[in-house]
């Protein structure tokens, strides 16, 4: 991406690896989540109260959703990863509200997550059905369908990653341009303080950051769940 809207490079590791703000923001999100998990699970009471209530609610929701979407038999295996994925994505997409550049606005993050899904789909498909039978499935319903089926499988990680990336980066660029436009509007009218930036961007933030962010993380997780369970059946 152009230097204008790409992630800033923070420092460079020996060997030429660049650490961008995507990586550092991801570290911050990891820190927050690990800290929260640690604090919330320190003392478990038989009768939950306070923070433990909230945590149990979240876990129940995640297990419920996973059981509903993938089938009750797969709940125990997949709910932890699906919950982590959804919570990480929600935090990552909402990072824009806190002044960070969302790590999911970097195609590297979204492609990495989509590749995890891709490998999950094929690994668990092969594990459940056996390698031979799973690969034979690509010749269904007619063996000439093989190239079309293969391309269809490759389309999954591409669409997963670009859907999330496009939504996030589109919102980012639009908000940046809006702030720029409001700033230059204030300057043109000769007002020193950028008063237009106070209230006008707020509803757009709610749409682009909150609504789109939460919806896209939900979609990514749901699609992962659906594709993995379909490969296993």
């Amino acid at each position, binding site marked *: 991406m152009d230097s204008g809207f790409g992630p800033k490079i923070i420092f460079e590791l020996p060997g030429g690896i660049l650490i961008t703000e995507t990586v550092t923001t991801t570290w911050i999100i990891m820190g927050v989540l690990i800290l929260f998990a640690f604090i919330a699970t320190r003392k478990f009471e038989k009768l939950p109260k306070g923070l433990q209530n909230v945590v149990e609610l979240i876990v129940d929701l995640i297990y419920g959703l996973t059981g509903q979407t993938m089938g009750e038999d797969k709940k125990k295996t997949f709910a932890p990863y699906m919950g982590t994925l959804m919570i990480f994505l929600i935090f990552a997409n909402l990072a824009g509200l806190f002044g960070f550049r969302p790590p999911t606005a970097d195609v590297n993050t979204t492609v990495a997550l989509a590749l995890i899904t891709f490998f999950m789909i094929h690994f668990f498909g092969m594990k459940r059905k056996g390698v031979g039978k799973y690969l034979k499935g690509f010749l269904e319903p007619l063996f000439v369908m093989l190239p079309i089926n293969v*391309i269809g499988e490759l389309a999954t990680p591409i669409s997963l990653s*670009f859907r999330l990336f496009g939504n996030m980066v589109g919102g980012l660029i639009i908000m940046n*341009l809006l702030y720029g436009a409001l700033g230059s509007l204030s300057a043109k009218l000769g007002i020193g303080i950028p008063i237009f930036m106070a209230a006008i961007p707020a509803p757009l933030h709610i749409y682009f950051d909150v609504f789109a962010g939460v919806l*896209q993380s939900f979609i990514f997780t749901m*699609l992962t769940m659906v594709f993995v369970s379909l490969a296993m059946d």
Partner: protein
Amino acid sequence: MENANFIETFLTWLMSFDKKALILAASAIGAGFSMIAGIGPGIGQGYAAGKGAEAMGVNQKSGKQATMIMLLGAGIAETSGILALVIALILLFGNPLVNQEGNALVIAVSAIAAGISMIGGMGPGIGQGYAAGKGAEAVSINPDGSRPSTLVMLLGSAVAQTSGIFSLVIALLLMYANPLVTTKGAAIILAASTLGAGIAMIAGIGPGVGQGYAAGKGTEATGKRPQYQSSIIRTMILGQAVAQTTGIYALVIALVLMFANPLIGLL
């Protein structure tokens, strides 16, 4: 033979303009092309409005709920129109191409291609509008199933938006980070590849309409039988993923033309 001379004359005439003037002129054309995407939300929201009116007639008691779902879905359908408007406004008021370094012809064509790329947003506009209409209808038939069917409508509409997002990504790439602007090669091939990348994204119309139809039917089915919500969602998502493939082909071709162009070396 006459045709070849005409193209040469046309290109020579184009290059006779000042670089900045050429790019600004192309931006104007690109902004115009981008607004063609408005066709989609117009059709989709009109359908939703009609279905909303029908829902009010069928079941007056749940009319308020049906109207809210209709407005929610219509708001989602508006997205493609807004994205197209944003691209047009960028081209007109915050033009990033005017000061770019590189081949003037390619930069100018990038503006036009970015506008053409947004035409693909027409599809999601129509599809999501259909889903919104079906959502209103589902509420009128079965008010108890309104929560699950709204969820399915949102889910299906969000997947249907994908083609519009791909178009937006290509348009933004063309405007802010077109690699062909600074590639070495015949300017005519680079410019034509840029234009081709933009035109390829028009394919987004198809998956947008199709996935929106799937979303609408999923909403209707969930409204009628909320207890089957999860299996309905699974089938809908599976079908929508298959429908996405030609949109993916278009995205891949556009990216290949921009980043891994095989034609430059053939000359």
